[in-house]
């Protein structure tokens, strides 16, 4: 754990976007996240890897307080966004979520038109002054979501009528449309074909120039490709958090090594 502190120091010198301290999450009696400390840097892609059920999604959902919506979920510890505790009473989770956008594991388009799916966020956040601006945002977001060409002729068809992959890209585009500062993605490419995946990865890379991106993935290749930092979770613990190259070439913890070489899960 020495290295963790070392990292923290380097990170402090950079801009830290999110820092989590001693985070504990319980679902009723299940202890899903156990004392996790992590610093997520701005303008960086961080990936969370780990076996299924290890708590990646849970931790991700802590970062924009989506867990608030689950009654039995209790979060302890501090999570700071730009130095401000997001679990502070004065923080408006809504505002937080506008800053920290999210793409879910299962694509969940609204049962509305494709256009309205994208335009919804900008509308409620007042990002467009008029129809033309809104149109522009919608088009830009759909392009960034690598789905514009497929849907440009049926913007007013329902979003639920798209294929699984299309739906997922729509959801990414929807999240991007609100111009968040941090984008959380829970396995955003799990339903995508390689080309679309590549496009989304490109998008992630593009987003990195402005924002912090956190991505949960099962594909070690993907983690290696897109992320600069990688966190490895195991059974609710953050086992190791370091530069991606370091994790994949020279992990400190034996569990990490076992996982990336395919021995534990």
């Amino acid at each position, binding site marked *: 754990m020495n290295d963790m502190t070392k990292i923290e120091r380097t990170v402090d010198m950079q801009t830290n976007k999110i820092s989590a301290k001693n985070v504990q999450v319980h679902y009723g009696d299940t202890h899903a996240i156990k004392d996790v400390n992590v610093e997520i840097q701005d303008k960086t892609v961080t990936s969370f890897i780990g076996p299924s059920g290890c708590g990646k999604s849970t931790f991700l959902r802590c970062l924009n307080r989506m867990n608030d919506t689950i*009654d039995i979920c209790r979060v302890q510890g501090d999570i700071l966004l730009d130095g401000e505790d997001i679990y502070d009473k004065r923080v408006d989770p809504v505002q937080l979520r506008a800053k920290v956008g999210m793409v879910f594991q299962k694509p969940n388009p609204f049962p509305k038109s494709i256009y309205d799916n994208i335009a919804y966020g900008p509308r409620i956040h007042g990002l467009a002054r008029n129809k033309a601006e809104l149109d522009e945002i919608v088009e830009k977001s759909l392009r960034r979501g690598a789905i514009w060409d497929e849907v440009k002729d049926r913007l007013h068809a329902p979003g639920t009528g798209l294929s699984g992959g299309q739906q997922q890209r729509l959801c990414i585009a929807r999240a991007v449309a609100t111009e968040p500062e941090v984008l959380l993605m829970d396995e955003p490419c799990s339903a995508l074909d390689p080309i679309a995946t590549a496009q989304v990865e490109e998008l992630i890379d593009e987003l990195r120039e402005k924002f912090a991106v956190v991505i949960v993935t099962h594909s070690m290749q993907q983690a290696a490709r897109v992320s600069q930092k990688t966190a490895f979770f195991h059974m609710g613990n953050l086992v190791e958090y370091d530069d991606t190259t370091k994790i994949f070439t020279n992990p400190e913890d034996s569990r990490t090594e076992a996982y990336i070489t395919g021995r534990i899960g």
Partner: protein
Amino acid sequence: MTDMTANGVPEATPHAKSSLLTQDAHTKQRNAAEKRFRIYGITAIAIGLVFLVLLISSILFKGVGAFQQTKLTLQVELLEAKLDKSGTRDIEKIKKVTTFGYNPLIDTAIKRALEEGGIENPFSKGKDLRKLLSSGAAAQIREFVVANPDRIGDTVEFKLLASSRVDGYLKGRVSRESLARDKNLTPVHLDMVDQMRETGVVNKGFNLSFITGADASESRPEQAGIGVSMLGSFYMMLVVLTAALPIGVAASIYLEEFAKQNWFTDLIEVNISNLAAVPSIVFGILGLAVFIQFAHLPQSAPLVGGLVLTLMTLPTIIISTRASLKAVPPSIREAALGVGASKMQTVFHHVLPLAMPGILTGTIIGLAQALGETAPLLLIGMVGYIASNPPEGLIDGFLSPNSAMPAQIYEWAKRADPAYYERAWGGIIILLLFLMTMNIIAILLRRRFERRW
């Protein structure tokens, strides 16, 4: 499957290599179950529809007569000697002449019509002749005279309502045999009616005043109409809709989306489901105590009726709204929250529209229940003889005494004269039309919101 039962030993792949084109025993059995299930469904709908058809057809059969009415066209001379002895056309003096004072005019008019038609008149007393006519005829003429005092002295043509027995005769309800022991009319009258029909004095026509008119007293079924109580129902539904729907939806949203699990929420929940089981008459007791005796709202007013029915329908709307809110998948809520919508926005932008079909169903059923309810109205003074006239304005409609369609129908169904029985069923037809108009609007709305995801 077959060999499995034969050998008693299950194979690794029990249905291996069985042909698709032939069904094995188990599948047959399951398909039979499937067919049965489908038949149950069809039967269920058929049962519902058969009863509906049965009910509707018997309603139509019994009630359609109310939409026709017999009238006598008579030339009435408005004798100055009877109506304005002083000759001053002083309206106050003219008003002093009661409806009883108009009877001689009517007698003369009937006699004249008989003479002109060459019809023999076996009656010596005017009273017996007047049995052909509604007792409201005098009031009709008096009203005309009070409104047009300058016409006194003229002979004016009136279309006067026939009495309910004469009307029944033309509709086939009354026959010479059925009149045998009736003291209200004799077969001789019917002979006269037959002849007067030939001369065109007696006519049966569409009964517009049944649809627009007000209630009449026990002895004048021919004059009774449902129009005013329809307005009463309309105003009550207006109150119910504008109060129960928003309150119900708001309460459901609070309970389903915002309320934390605590004793207060439990208290509300238990109360709501309990209120659904409270007999409607108890709501009447409540309405009398709270709205009339405590809040001093006027008696017999549609406003009060509407408020009582609102309280009564709220549980229905809340329960169905909550059920449909619950049915909206959480992923939709997450999606909205994820792009930074507030909880309130999530609910109003996404959840509510998706729950709309269920809400509208609840509203339809709740309003239908409210529209057909009589018992609570009994206690707040909306059942009985409430011969209000059409309200004078929007506000007046809420406050002036009125009845409601089901109460009116209930009253009519209780009255002695069989002519009222026909009116009651006619009223039910109108009530159902009213209900269907209401439903169609809601159903059109519902269809706009219905989709599967």
